[in-house]
């Protein structure tokens, strides 16, 4: 199987390194090497750069793409925001000679040229299409049978459908299918496809509005009996993880639903330690989820409670 240029971005590597660690180990196991994109930067952040100045947004994104072009590999990213920026830039520069010329004039300043000969791909889509559900299921050593999972797709993994073409964005199944290879159950909940609230620069500009989105999602997940949230975007991840503490502080509502990036969730099912996945550093304690899915822990609980 082809190797990838591994685009890190910001929030994963600079806040939740367990996502990166788990992905590197997991892909090695699947026989795929994730190669570092040396000197890559922020994608750049679509909410700010895309909103402030399109040319700057395209140019920084195009520079990141040229690093992978030099490596001769397609890009893999596991952040919806980075995927949105890099995919859309690639898509736009591919189809628009004028924009490409303009961006290349800017890149010439640093001796680079965007050619447009690689693809930008999302981690979850590679898992599904290149590795396949069977191979993932085979790699599961610690089934997560008891868990009800609220899958959060986020926005820029599947949309805009017209360009991205991964799955039906109104009623997708790709993530639910991957999650269920672990033995866990992916549950339906109201407004499953709704945004977490962080995107478009809303989190940094208007935290109360962002948290109102998040609370909506958490309320609906809770009503459906979710034990954990599984996402495919470190920014959504942060919004759910940190957001739950912010909601508690600002609004008094307490949810306490553990949050996992898909890479961490699969890592757990493949037997990696919670410490390696850095889930112990999350704001929202993941122990209830670990206990529910781990026989050992259940036995320990039995000792304490005498089996009650």
């Amino acid at each position, binding site marked *: 199987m082809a190797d990838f240029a591994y685009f890190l971005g910001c929030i994963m590597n600079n806040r939740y390194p367990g996502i990166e660690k788990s992905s590197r180990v997991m892909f090695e196991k699947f026989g795929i090497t994730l190669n570092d994109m040396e000197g*890559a930067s922020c994608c750049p952040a679509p909410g700010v750069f895309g909103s402030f100045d399109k040319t700057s947004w395209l140019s920084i994104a195009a520079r990141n793409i040229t690093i992978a072009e030099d490596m001769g590999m397609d890009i893999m990213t596991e952040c919806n925001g980075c995927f949105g920026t890099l995919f859309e830039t690639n898509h736009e520069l591919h189809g628009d000679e004028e924009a490409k010329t303009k961006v290349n004039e800017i890149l010439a300043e640093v001796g680079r040229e965007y050619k447009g000969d690689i693809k930008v791909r999302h981690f979850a889509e590679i898992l599904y299409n290149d590795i396949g559900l069977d191979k993932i299921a085979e790699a599961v050593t610690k089934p997560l049978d008891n868990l009800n999972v609220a899958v959060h797709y986020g926005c820029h993994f599947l949309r805009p459908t017209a360009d991205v073409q991964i799955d039906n964005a109104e009623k997708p199944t790709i993530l639910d299918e991957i999650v269920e290879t672990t033995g866990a159950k992916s549950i339906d909940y109201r407004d499953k496809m709704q945004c977490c609230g962080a*995107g478009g620069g809303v989190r940094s500009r208007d935290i109360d509005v962002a948290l109102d989105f998040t609370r909506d999602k958490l309320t609906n997940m809770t009503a459906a009996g979710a034990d954990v949230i599984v996402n495919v975007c470190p920014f959504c991840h942060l919004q759910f993880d940190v957001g739950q503490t912010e909601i508690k502080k600002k609004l008094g509502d307490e949810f306490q639903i553990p949050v996992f990036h898909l890479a961490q969730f699969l890592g757990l099912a493949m037997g990696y330690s919670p410490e390696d996945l850095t889930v112990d550093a999350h704001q929202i304690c993941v122990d209830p989820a670990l206990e529910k899915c781990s026989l050992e822990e259940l036995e320990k609980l039995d000792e304490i409670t005498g089996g009650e």
Partner: protein
Amino acid sequence: MKNLRRLKNFLTGQEAEEDKKEEISEDIQTPEIVEETSDRTEETIETSPAVEENAELEPVKEEEPETEELEPEITVEEEIIEEDVPEEKEEPKKEVEVVEEAEKPKTKGSVNMSLLNREENLVSPEDVDNTFKQDIMDAGADTVALCYQCGTCTGSCPSGKRTPYRIRSIIRKSLMGLRNEVLTDDTIWECVTCYACQERCPRGVAIVDVVKIIRNMQSHAGRMAQAHKMTGSFVLKTGHGVPINDATMALRKRVGLNELPPTTHEYPEALEEVRSILKKTGFDTLIGYNWETGEIE
């Protein structure tokens, strides 16, 4: 025969009945609103435009510290929107009703819907800039011209559910050429760019592109939030919108990753490339970045 009768009912009786119902309900509602608006007309005229604008944005924000009040207010808004989505002229009315329940100060919306303030609410030729629509199209969203104002976008919008952001209205104003009004409307920044509107638009309008184009225009006119400029400044400083910190460096080390990721954090010459590009595009000047102090001016 049954089918025929059903068809007949459908074409005449039932429909006529429903129409009547609708008319009645409208009749009931209208006087209420006229009363409402005329009551408050004086007070609203007195407020300056700037204050009005704030008032429009405030409801959600203002409530924030008072936990208990936020919940009911939002629920009310949700219900109303769900019921009334397809009806064109409901938009301002919604706000009136919400405001009534929560006993809020008058919003701009309720003034707009009134014909009593004709002078204030008439669009006159000097408000119209015929090049505005073309500017948006030239910036890459030529589909904007296809909009037929069905409202599917606002009906699908999770942000419009909880803020005064009304994307259908912004598209309409853009097509009308109300440049000044659109480019001073802060609600455009409440869009989370989730594409819910664009996915469902029956006319294939690239709505999120329109939003970003309008935001680009506002930014170039100096309308940028400080928090956003800060994110921009972090990229100029470190190459990352969210740079590394000590806690994460320790975590990285613990799991056997390099303390610094192999990005601009590890490669200073790569950071220089990022800086050169952003100087060339003028991004540093746009956000008022001071290269000597590393701060926003």
